[in-house]
């Protein structure tokens, strides 16, 4: 799936990892997934020169996220602007904030993570609840294979 698949952390972190391809690919109940969207509270952050790594806790799991500060995806040709945007986003990611993270699913040392494409702080606390309901509905209606 090329769309950002809305997943709870427990669902995301249990994706099957296929190391035969390089980079590794991921499947959920047999269906390939490459991008994910998650919503949760930032419970850890570590800022380095080249990246910000942080953990998003949605109550079902803690999703490791990495936001590269020195480059972005191919859609951004101007690396200077892209890096500046990434630094601005990184500044908003603070402990205790409710964030919505979208990005590519990758694996680091065998653990599934999100390589962040964009991250926004959610001001409405109901956004998380609506995300839960989206995750449940989409899993049952779209993502799960038909019975």
């Amino acid at each position, binding site marked *: 799936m090329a769309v950002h698949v809305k997943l709870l952390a427990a669902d995301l972190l249990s994706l099957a990892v296929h190391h035969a391809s390089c980079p590794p690919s991921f499947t959920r109940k047999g269906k390939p997934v490459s991008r994910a969207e998650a919503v949760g509270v930032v419970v850890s952050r570590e800022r380095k020169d080249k990246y910000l790594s942080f*953990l998003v806790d949605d109550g079902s799991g803690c999703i490791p996220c990495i936001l590269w500060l020195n480059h972005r995806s191919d859609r951004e040709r101007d690396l200077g602007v892209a890096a500046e945007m990434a630094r601005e986003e990184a500044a908003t990611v603070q402990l205790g904030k409710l964030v919505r993270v979208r990005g590519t699913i990758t694996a680091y040392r065998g653990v599934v993570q999100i390589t962040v494409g964009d991250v926004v702080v959610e001001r409405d606390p*109901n956004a998380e609840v609506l995300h839960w309901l989206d995750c449940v509905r989409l899993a049952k209606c779209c993502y799960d294979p038909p019975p």
Partner: protein
Amino acid sequence: MAACSIKPAIPVILKELEQGSQFFHQGASLRVTGKLQEYSVDTAIAVITEADVSFKIDTQHLRDLTFRIGSYYQFIGELLVFPEDSAILQARVGRNVDGLDINLYHRSLQLRRQFEVELMNSRVT
């Protein structure tokens, strides 16, 4: 990432935090939500309430959080159970959640738990 050792905080309703509950054990990582009833600047102890149940939160590790009596807050932390069966949550993260639809939150939490059980069962089978 060393931080991966952090356990997810299970969202619970205050009335579920009683002796004998599956969530009520030493060191449990929990997420609790309620209206701020009391806050002591001296001890950094906050008391939140929800549906006539109150619960103590130790907020000494929190920074950049303003406490307003009557506002809703959500805390993530670990449960510290005392011998006399009272307990306090040692918060490591907290945020203001004014505007949260509590009824929707509770109902969605039940749906979510049901989904998580189904998810777990589908992995086993």
